[in-house]
């Protein structure tokens, strides 16, 4: 808030001072400075957004002329497509499990790292590493780990635990996707939360310690409320990305077995670029957008109950 105000002030002062000798040249300069960006944004962002809406009301199949079909795609999605409800359920299931586990693990690691006296930055780097590597490469490595008679089966056998082949099992396949996503994604939130914990003023904690608060109380009553805005930010961003999950599923399961791991992201790809049902796939994309907006709105509504802003 203060930064925004400061910058607003610095921006306004010189502007008012030279308003009188402001010439039309400045507007023209601004136009040319903005032109490359505007062309790109219009062509590759605005037009696609509009086209996506229009497409979702057509039956375009890449070849041939598209026909306007009204809400037929959406009606088909919700009433006739036997795959849609499982896909929606898979997406929500993945998002819920991944989101909760990601937050617990990353917050746990962040607190653990911040309690250390040496090596904080090295632990941060280690857990962050997968974040900077291609998700596809990560998924292929884990696919080898989960392959039949691969490393995972080897460990399970050594522990005398009998498990079916993970990637071809109806319930375990999704768990494998969650594990891989966690490995790849937990690092960003770990660093984010760790940075927030570092910003908690030491004198707050010191004062609480002198007043006799235990470490447990200091965490729940001081550190957690103070970093709750950051936790909220991490939760919203993680939810948005996890609703779009695609790479891991494309590599490891292709939505299978059956459609046990087919998510909305995978369905858009499959309908659009394997069945070439561009109109239908666009309708799925808008369902995804609605879901993202709804979940984000829900979180903004819920934040009043748990996010603490100091002002």
């Amino acid at each position: 808030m203060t930064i925004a105000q400061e910058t607003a002030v610095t921006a306004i002062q010189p502007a008012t001072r030279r308003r009188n000798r402001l010439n039309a040249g400045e507007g023209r300069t601004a136009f040319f400075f903005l032109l490359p960006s505007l062309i790109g944004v219009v062509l590759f962002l605005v037009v696609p957004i509009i086209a996506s809406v229009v497409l979702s009301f057509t039956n375009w199949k890449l070849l041939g002329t598209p026909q306007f079909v009204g809400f037929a795609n959406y009606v088909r999605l919700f009433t006739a497509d036997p795959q849609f409800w499982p896909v929606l359920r898979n997406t929500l299931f993945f998002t819920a499990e991944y989101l909760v586990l990601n937050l617990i693990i990353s917050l746990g690691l962040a607190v653990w790292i911040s309690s250390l006296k040496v090596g904080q930055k090295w632990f941060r780097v280690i857990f962050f590493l997968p974040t900077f590597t291609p998700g596809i490469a990560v998924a292929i490595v884990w696919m080898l780990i989960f392959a039949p008679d691969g490393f995972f089966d080897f460990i399970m056998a050594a522990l005398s635990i009998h498990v079916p082949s993970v990637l071809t099992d109806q319930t375990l396949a999704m768990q494998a996707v969650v594990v891989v996503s966690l490995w790849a994604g937990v690092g960003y939130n770990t660093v984010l939360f760790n940075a927030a914990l570092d910003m908690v003023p030491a004198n707050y904690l010191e004062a609480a310690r002198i007043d006799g608060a235990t470490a447990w109380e200091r965490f729940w009553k001081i550190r957690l409320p103070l970093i709750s805005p950051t936790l909220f930010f991490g939760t919203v961003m993680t939810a948005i990305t996890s609703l779009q999950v695609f790479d891991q599923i494309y590599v490891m399961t292709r939505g299978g077995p059956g459609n046990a791991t087919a998510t909305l992201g995978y369905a858009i790809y499959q309908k659009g670029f394997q069945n070439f049902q561009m109109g239908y796939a666009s309708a799925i994309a808008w369902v995804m957008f609605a879901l993202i907006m709804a979940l984000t709105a829900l979180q903004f509504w819920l934040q009043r109950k748990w996010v603490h802003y100091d002002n």
Partner: protein
Amino acid sequence: MTTRAKSRAGSMALDILSHGALALVALLFLFPFFWMVSNAVRSNAEVLAIPVRILPNVFEWHNFAAAWTQLPFGRFFVNSLIVSVSVTAITVVVSCLSGYAFARLKFPGRDALLMAYLATLMVPGIMLIIPLFLIVNNLGMVNTFQGVILPVAFGTFGSFLMRQFFLSIPNELEEAARIDGASRLRILVSIIVPLSMPAIGLLSLFSFIGQWNNFLWPLIVMTGADNATLPVGLTLFQTQQGTAWNYIMAGATLSMLPGIILAIALQKLIYNSIALNAGMGGR
């Protein structure tokens, strides 16, 4: 020993235990990296051996050279480099220009346009792949580099990031140059940009890594195997019978190297940028 010394010794033991336990967790966390390299340097027969071997009996370091030339991961590596560097270069130039206009120039509708730019950040990328593909198709750019590069090079985040940074540069620095009659473009290039290297570095880093790791968009546009980027190339040999797992693991290692090197070399920059996000959560 006094009780105070005793409790200090106790807390030191606890400290060591805590460091050691997290080090163990970190080691386990690193296992997939180890498994990747360990399988990259063995024969395919050893990859598939039952029971699994943690380390290969025979180390075949030449697998990296073979994967680079035969599959050809070298080609994919160069393709990825072309795409990532081009997108980054365009993004930086376009963002500096538009960011400067938003930060320093007065024009009608500026604030509304900035809000519109911010609003586009909420549109998830995967939603737009279908219309974007149709546009690229209509422009005749399927299976070309410009087809992969251009649609992802004009993100609005860069404009916003550069605007925020430019606003933090004191206006007086360019006033003198303006009085001397320097053009806005000249001021941007010779005064503002040199002062903005931290922000430009950050934008370049995240733009480069984002494209280097991008999969779905090049998968759709690059229909020919010769033009595949590394992530797409990695999946090309996946479904065939008799998958050359060792070469694929070598390719995966190659694809991870730039990100790992950048994450370690630029850890301070990355931490500071994420800390900025953490600090913006309401404070």
